[in-house]
């Protein structure tokens, strides 16, 4: 469950000339039950121009033994810091191929951020809290966004051209079939897409200091 929602967490930088920056994609994602789906990563991958994305800085907090936000999308080479806002230590780790790393039990903000050089999905866990789960989508394209609570997001001011739309969600079932789009002359395309999710596997979590043993 996502308890804290931060709609836009990364800064979009414009690097193209104004004549080329013209198109908008507004997208709404639903699940198989027609329910608006937040935390879905939306990526447009240009078929022709291989624009290198600019590295960014991003933050994933640990608040009340949760990663906040739970899902972020970053460009290749971005740096992510993991400040621990709890009064206990956390042990952030990943065994994902894109970036295996660990930050053994620490408090506060680590001195050095973690650099994600390879595109892919990095699943974050906490060694001492099984339920803590975070996802970092490391993109090879600069055109990325994440759906908000109403399943909606947009990618703005990108140049004309043919693009592949890719979606990713932590629960997505199977691989998403990319959708082809063609943008030209300040086109603004609104699109609603639904994806199929796997059922969410629950992970047991203590309810509180004096509460029941497991969360339902």
């Amino acid at each position, binding site marked *: 469950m996502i308890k804290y929602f931060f709609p836009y967490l990364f800064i979009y930088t414009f690097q193209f000339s104004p004549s080329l920056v013209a198109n908008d994609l507004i997208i709404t994602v639903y699940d198989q039950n027609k329910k608006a789906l937040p935390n879905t990563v939306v990526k447009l991958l240009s078929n022709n121009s291989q624009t290198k994305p600019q590295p960014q800085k991003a933050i994933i907090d640990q608040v009340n033994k949760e990663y906040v936000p739970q899902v972020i999308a970053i460009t290749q080479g971005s740096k992510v810091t993991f400040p621990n806002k709890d009064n206990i230590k956390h*042990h952030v*780790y*990943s*065994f994902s191929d894109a970036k*295996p790393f660990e930050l053994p039990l620490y408090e506060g903000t680590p001195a050095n951020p973690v650099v994600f050089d390879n595109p892919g999905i990095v*699943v*974050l*866990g*906490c*060694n001492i809290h*099984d339920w*803590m*789960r975070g996802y970092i989508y490391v993109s090879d394209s600069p055109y990325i966004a994440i759906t908000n609570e109403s399943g909606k997001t947009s990618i703005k001011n990108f140049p004309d051209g043919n693009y592949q739309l890719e979606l990713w969600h*932590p629960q997505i079932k199977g691989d998403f079939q990319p959708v082809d789009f063609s943008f030209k002359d300040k086109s603004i395309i609104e699109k609603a897409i639904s994806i199929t999710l796997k*059922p*969410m*596997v*629950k*992970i*047991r979590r203590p309810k509180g200091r004096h509460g029941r043993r497991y969360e339902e």
Partner: protein
Amino acid sequence: MLFRFRKFQTRLLFFLVLLLLSLQLAIYISVRTANIQHAKVEISDNLKVGAGVFNRILTERTQNLFQYARLLSADYAFKPAFHSGDHPTILSAMENHLARLEGAQLMTLVDLDNNVIAKTLAPLQTNIKFVWPELIKQAEQNEYAEATSIEMIGDTPYQMIVVPYFSPDISAWVIIGFAIDQSVADDIKSVIQSEVSFLTHTKSNDWKISSTTLPMTTEDYQNQIKHLITQTIFDKKHSLGSIQYGEDELITFVQPIDKKLKVTALLQRSLNKALAPYLKLQATLQTLFWITLILSIALVIALARKVTKPVKELTKSAKNIESGNYTARININLKDEIGELADSFNKMAKGLEEKEKVRNLLGKVVSSEIAEELLSKDIELGGEEKEATILFSDIRQFTTLCEGYSAKEILNVLNIYLTSMSEAIENNKGVIDKYIGDAIMALFGIPLSNNTDANQSVSAAMSMIENLKKLTEKSQLGQLNFQMGIGINTGLVVAGNMGSPNRLNYTVIGDAVNLASRLEGLTKYYGVNIIVSESTRNRATNWEFLELDKVIVKGKAEPIIIFQPIATKGQLSEQQTLQLELNRKILFHYRNREWDKAKEVIEQIKLYDDSKFGQIYQKRVDSFLNTPPPNNWDFSNKFDTK
């Protein structure tokens, strides 16, 4: 009746023992039935509880596996090994985990594409597919992505569990299993105190015992349990049944283990074992039975004796009375019905005794026949007319004879005489009516009529004369020389009770009686011992008579012919035959007024006859010779004296 018992005691015993036996048998059977039923219910309850415990144990084992698998799936130390992709390392780590887990026999790691990553049961195999994908599919349906099922490895069922392996998202599946085998059965048996068997459903739709705590199983036993399981599982009828196991009976509870009905557990308890405490009760019952039986028999014998002893005494006394001993009395001091009976019996015996005394006395006072007659009827005044023969006897000149003797001497002599005479009469069925001093009045045909009374009376008279002769010869009558006369007559008399209601005599009266007495009086005149009337002579066909005369006795108008008996018919001596002939001739000539001829014959008869017959007729003939009888002479001789 099937049985007949001669003795009351035996009968009482038989019925009591029968009653006791049936009662005890009923108690025994009902107690036994109740015990068995109770034991069965108890066993069933125990088995149901046991089944709960059994389920709980299996569930806990499974839960333990789950918990351990969860620990493993979150084990941080295992993660680097897992991600290393190095098969020996992964396998080794898994074996390490398995070693920590008591009771589990296998661990398998399967990737998300159903490929086996590592498998402890087949350490060397790689690149193989997981054999129970259904198990993982089942897990995918679960909110925690966990599942459990029973799977067969060879003939052994295994409880399998699967949990997701988080690294940190689901990266693989961890499968852990434990064998439901003999050790599990033994373990559960030690907890629930019941026999535990596991049976697996084979592909040929049969049930096979995979493990059991029973020492041995026969084919018959297996068939029974297969039947029970089939019924329980497919007909959903019984989960509880009774199975013969050798000499024991096992109450069996069928407990399917998995939903797919691959494996079923049997929980069983011995009926004999459960009945053991009741056997003690049974033994107590048996002892009680014997004690009751012996006590009852003793009691019955005592009771029967108490009843039969007085009854036996009663019987003995009744027999005494039957044989005429009325003095017997029963000495029973009981206040109950038997005591009352004994009292009544004693009173009855006393009554009988008194009655018998009366009867004896009566028999002495009157003749026994009359006593019988009196006793057989209500005694009341009045009589009935009967034909009878009356005999009168008398001692001639008794008064004169007695002069000079004391009364005691006379009584003594008289008693000897009367006893002898009475004997003669009674021997000839005569009845002594009364003694009148030296005279005797006897009846024949009274009170019981018969056709031989006349004959009997003559016989009696002849015997009396004979007896007197003997008495005289033997000098039993002292110096006295008795002459006696007997008169006999047959005719109608009135017989009955005469007198007053308080004092009465059974006797006979009538003309016939008087005549007999008159005839007795004539004996002296004719110088004979016996005179019978014509009516008696006519009926006494056994005798030969001499006709004596035709007489008109005192007080009578009609003449009668009188006779003297001389011999039994056909036994006349020569002299008697001659006498008889002369007698007839005399009477013939006499009545035909042939006096001379009569005289002639009278002279002859005097030679043969010592009676006064000759003298009497000679006198008459002499008289008629002087004064002949009138023309209307009827030959009769009239007596003016008795």
